[in-house]
């Protein structure tokens, strides 16, 4: 048996139990529901339209990209070539900088010789790399050559004199005179006296005739020149 201890006998029906609030739930719930539904639809519509527009935009962009792809590749290729050529140009500028003007100095050499001394070989050498080695393939492009080039900014330069002179007695007079001339101011812009190597010896093949008054000697002198600067 269901016992209820309350003396409150309420005859009011549930349908008669109304809200005193000006905002009526009975009215507001459907309105709110409708608003929720419509706003959801609007959001969905916006999303759908946005998605569609994005897809179209993506498609257009893809078409444009495919159109520009060949041009893009060409541009990239040209850029690469430009970069390479600019690099070469820069290298050439370095080489231009590194040019040592030795013609006038070497022309002055004629003043250093007498009739008793003769120059048979004159070699001005720099440390040029061996471009075509035995182990590596022949470079095909300028870039390949550039890769083989030295990366240091200074190149050592050597000057080699070979020749012969006549000497009477023990003292190599002619040779000393020549070496003294090379110490002169005219050659300071070309050679240094550091690590100078002077070799001379009697040219036995020419001195077989003992009747001659003077003997023939051969010399080989190596000078270290001022370095080539690429800066």
């Amino acid at each position, binding site marked *: *048996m*269901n*016992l*209820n*201890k*309350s*003396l*409150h*006998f*309420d*005859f*009011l*029906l549930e349908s*008669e*139990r*109304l*809200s*005193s*609030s*000006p905002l*009526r739930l*009975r009215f507001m719930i459907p309105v709110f529901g409708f608003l929720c539904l419509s706003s959801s639809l609007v959001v969905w519509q916006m999303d759908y339209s946005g998605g569609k527009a994005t897809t179209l935009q993506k498609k257009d962009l893809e078409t444009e990209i495919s159109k520009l792809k060949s041009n893009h590749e060409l541009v990239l290729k040209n850029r690469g070539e430009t970069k390479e050529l600019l690099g070469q140009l820069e290298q050439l500028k370095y080489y231009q900088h590194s040019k040592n003007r030795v013609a006038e100095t070497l022309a002055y050499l004629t003043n250093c010789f007498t009739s008793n001394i003769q120059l048979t070989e004159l070699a001005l050498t720099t440390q040029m790399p061996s471009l075509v080695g035995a182990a590596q393939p022949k470079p095909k492009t300028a870039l390949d050559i550039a890769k083989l080039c030295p990366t240091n900014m200074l190149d050592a330069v050597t000057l080699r004199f070979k020749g012969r002179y006549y000497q009477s007695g023990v003292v190599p007079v002619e040779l000393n005179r020549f070496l003294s001339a090379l110490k002169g101011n005219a050659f300071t812009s070309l050679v240094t006296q550091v690590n100078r190597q002077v070799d001379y010896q009697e040219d036995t093949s020419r001195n077989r005739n003992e009747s001659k008054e003077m003997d023939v000697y051969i010399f080989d002198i190596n000078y270290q020149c001022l370095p080539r600067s690429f800066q």
Partner: protein
Amino acid sequence: MKTITLPPRIVARFKKKYTDVVGLELGSGLSGVPAVRIVKGKQGFEIKAVGILDMLDTLPQTLEAANASEETPSWSLPKAFCAPHAALAVTSKWNFLRHTSGPNEEIPEKKKCEYRDLRRTFTPDMPELVAGLPEFQAGWAASLFPEGRAPTACSLQISQLAIMNSFNQHPAVKNATGSSVGLFVSSQSTALVAFQNRLPVLYREFPLGTSHVQQEVASKMQLAPILVQQLLDEDAMDASPYFESILKPLFRQVEIMNDYLSRRRNLPATNYFISGALLGARYWHAMFIKIVGKELTHCRPFEGIPMAKDAVVLPDKLESVESLFTAAAGAALAVMEES
């Protein structure tokens, strides 16, 4: 389909809380509508406004009158009485409250017109109480307050039970232990209720009300009924002999009830309460002591309920007309007590 019953603690959490209710008595027969606005604060109940509102109470008294009236008026209460919710108590000769003889007892009133009825069992060994309100009056009362404007109806009760609810909130009743008998005096009848632990175990109505007492005393003293009240308030004369003969049958009923409590429930009444507008209250008390031999405690509806600081009290002398608001106050209190 299997039904799930939620625990009362969870149900109570979701149940609407009523803390500000205006109680209104419809069909009171007065020139206005008794209204009491009660708020429930941390300190307990407080009366916010009390008064007889100048409203046209056209509660239909017959089914024909209800059918004839085109539409129910829409009431708008004064601001002081505009609580969010209104608890309505209907006083009508069509209402009924009685014990049934069995669970499926037919209600004869339903043969005359459509009724709203509620049954409730308070103790397992007692027949259930059934209360009824005619549909034409209930529908009329329920549609007095339209939606979207304060107040709206939150409860519809019959005044007999609303008065009992007011009585149950009285401090003397709350503090009383054991069994008690309550007399609820209205204009046309007196309800006698035996309570055990504040629950009604026996309900009877005796056809003697204030108006009968007034008529009888006036007739015996050969006075106009309107003069009786004034005369009884004066100490110059003793009207005990008139009252004894009038009240004796009623107080005999009290003795019968007490006898019932003693024999059937083994708990004789230790407290006797009376509520309502008593004509010649001192004679009622004196006669009760003389006939029953017990003290009678008069329960006023607003005892134990303080006035709020800004309370609006419309009657000049509230104490003298306090009993007119018993049903209205009881209606509001029942709602707030239950929520």
